[in-house]
């Protein structure tokens, strides 16, 4: 019985282009594909049902694409693993398409040219784009020392995700490749911050200003 096949077995049959396997695949996973697409359609502010229908077809086409390339790349025999996989893949495909639809509706699709007008002007702590870039380069160089060893690349990524991209320690810890808990991320950030901050003071000679009322994530 196809309904008793494991995910891995079902996917193997689907890749062999067996119609009953596709029926079973759609029976099991159409709800998650459709719900994931619907979520993105709503997020993009689109309400037309036809768009949702087209996007679902796009997802199936993509899943069939190049001899089921995406499905062949899936390795996990747990039903919830495939469920999560299809949820993310469907959302990703739907978002790409929705953004194109929204851009077309706005008459967009134009790249913002790189020009001096788009450079950041004086903003917050930085006098201009150059000051911002110089500071980044300085911290990048400083980070090399406290992040030596096998985990150097990982530790630097975590530091920059937090400080440049504004991610929370929890969000960072949710990436399994980092293999750290939220507490672990916080502890690493605290260690790196202290070393970077001291080195910045040493190398910049800047020691002006009163230490006052700092927002600090580790209080």
């Amino acid at each position: 019985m196809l309904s008793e096949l494991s995910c891995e077995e079902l996917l193997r049959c689907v890749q062999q282009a067996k119609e009953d396997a596709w029926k079973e695949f759609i029976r099991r996973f159409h709800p998650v594909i459709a719900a994931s697409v619907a979520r993105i359609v709503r997020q993009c502010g689109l309400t037309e049902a036809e768009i949702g229908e087209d996007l679902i077809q796009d997802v199936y086409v993509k899943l069939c694409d190049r001899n089921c390339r995406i499905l062949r790349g899936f390795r996990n025999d747990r039903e919830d693993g495939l469920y999560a996989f299809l949820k993310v893949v469907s959302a990703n495909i739907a978002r790409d398409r929705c953004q194109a639809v929204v851009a077309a509706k706005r008459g967009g699709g134009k790249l913002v040219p790189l020009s001096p007008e788009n450079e950041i002007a004086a903003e917050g702590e930085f006098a201009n784009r150059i000051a911002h870039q110089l500071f980044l380069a300085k911290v990048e160089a400083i980070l090399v020392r406290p992040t030596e060893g096998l985990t150097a690349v990982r530790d630097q990524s975590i530091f920059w995700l937090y400080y440049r991209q504004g991610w929370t320690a929890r969000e960072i810890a949710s990436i399994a490749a980092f293999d750290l808990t939220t507490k672990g991320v916080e502890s690493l950030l605290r260690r790196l911050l202290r070393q970077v901050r001291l080195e910045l003071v040493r190398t910049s000679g800047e020691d002006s200003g009163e230490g006052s009322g700092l927002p600090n994530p580790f209080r």
Partner: protein
Amino acid sequence: MPESPRNHLTDEELNRYVDGNADLPLAWLAHIQACGHCRQKAGGLASQQRKLEALASAERSTPGSACADGEIWWRIALDIAPADDAHAALAHAARCPTCARKLRLAIEDRDADLATQDPLIQGLPSSTSERMAQQAHRLTRAARAAAGHSAFGWKIWLVGAAAILGAISGTLILTRPTSGDANRLLAQAYGERRVTELRFPGARYAPFGQERGKADLQSQALREASAQIAKERSRHPHDGLWLQSSGRAKLIEWRYRDALSELQRAEVLLPGDPSVLADLAAAYFERAQAGDSQADYQVAIDLLSQAIGRDTNNAELHFNRAIVLGYVFQFPQAIQEWEEFLRLEPTGDWASEARSRLAEVKARGWPK
């Protein structure tokens, strides 16, 4: 308290003070109050902390050539990316707002609670059991067709699959011209009058001429392709392959602004497709030629490099990158590229032109 160096707080103690730890000994606090040296140092630490915290708001989203393709982000979110690829991509995303955003969206998608009872879904025809069975039948046919025709390339299959799926709405796409037909006409038009130094996909050799974009010089093939494209574009406004064909037609007409617009949209719909990246590079090349912009030449090189990364043995891509490299004075790289092209395509008219250009770059250090 006297300001004796012996009594100054250590770096670690000052760090803890700046972190705002609540359990600091009162003696430290009293010292900082009284000691100008330590207060000043703490102020310096605080100032650097403020700068670090201001970094996120100063980041600007400017996608670059080093940006990875979209799939890696959901693979990382799902923990199914190879470890080395994941760490390399994460190192990039940590420094690139565009990619960090894509990764964050993939994580949001992974963690989202889905409303499977969404009325939007319930009302869709594809959610009925009858349509699901039809869908399974179509997908099986598409998968079998793909397996049987893989030698023709995935894009042709994709058009076929799209045609099969198009039957849902009762439309028989298979009887209509495909974007592949239009592309063949465009390649023919290019072969009749080569308006750009870059090679056009699938086109036969033609010597390079300088007559650009003159309506009265339009070939019958170009007019025919343009008519097909206009008709199908109105039917399928969000079809990446037709957008690509439309962009190619504009390239032949030397309408690089329109070509850029069309091809950028095609790139969104067909992310990472090497042929779209190559067409986009051609559009930047034309704009560079029109405005003599070194930055546009560089963008073209970056795009061609991305395309070559995905389609390593495509001689046309190497030919085009060799041409553009010459325009940014990267002569050693241009020489290397011509040699690589000649390794891939050692005979024929294109190879003759390549040899001549290679000799010129070597002799004069400047492309034809």
